[in-house]
């Protein structure tokens, strides 16, 4: 039990340090908000609309499919460089690998993921 007391003390000290820093910053910093200061930082341009915009759900699936081919490229480049040494076995392996990924793409295509509407 006493070993866990140390953990508890660590948690309290850790949280206390954060709270103390916030408190210290609060009493130290000047407080002077005005509309020009509170505007969102958009590289010195005035922001258009709210920053809490909604991304379309499909965007994430697109990103996911992109990641598949990203990883494929990462494996393809070293494979292509070392192709002279590794021979036929590596070719077959890579074809199987690409076919598996291709199957994933065809599945997504069939499901209508690639239609943006």
């Amino acid at each position, binding site marked *: 039990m006493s070993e866990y007391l140390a953990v508890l003390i660590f948690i309290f000290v850790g949280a206390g340090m954060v709270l103390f820093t916030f408190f210290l910053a609060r009493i*130290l*910093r*000047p407080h002077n908000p*005005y509309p020009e200061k509170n*505007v969102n930082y958009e590289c*010195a*341009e*005035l922001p258009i609309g709210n920053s809490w915009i909604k991304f379309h759900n499909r965007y994430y699936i697109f990103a996911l499919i992109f990641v598949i081919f990203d990883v494929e490229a990462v494996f393809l480049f070293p494979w292509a460089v070392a192709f002279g040494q590794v021979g036929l076995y590596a070719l077959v392996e890579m074809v199987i690998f690409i076919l598996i990924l291709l199957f994933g793409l065809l599945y997504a295509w069939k499901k209508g993921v690639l239609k943006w509407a």
Partner: protein
Amino acid sequence: MGLIKKVPVYAEHVPGGGFVATQLESVLSHAQACSMWYLLFATACCAIELMCTGASRYDFDRLGMIFRPTPRQADLIIAAGTITKKMAPRLRRLYDQMAEPRYVIAMGGCTIRGGPFYYDSYAVEKGIDHIVPVDIYIPGCPPRPESLLEGCLHLQKKVKAQKLADWHEK
């Protein structure tokens, strides 16, 4: 909030309070002067010298000068380069978006008085002190890194000399 501003006022009523307030002032000013984070605001060839100052030969970091890409984290704008009429409101907006206390260094001839080459141009702002209050002017076209370092040392002197009550005025 901003309680620190009132410390010198309260301290007067306590015996020895003035000493404490002065020491606190000098410690805080020293800390502030030795970590001036600057906003990357480089619009022309002075930026090359600014980059050179930030690199290993001149080593800006030893003065506590670290560049920030956002005004929210910056204490200082080093305006390096020509400010056109179109850029001027953006500079003002960036200055507005910084937290007080904030400082401005005008680096190079263009930011001081429109510059030696563009002075006759209708599109160039004739000095950024029309837009934002400037603390340090560094002449040159562009100023060498040594000049920029000297300007920053002068700014540090200025910051170290300031009073707690000045924090809100900036």
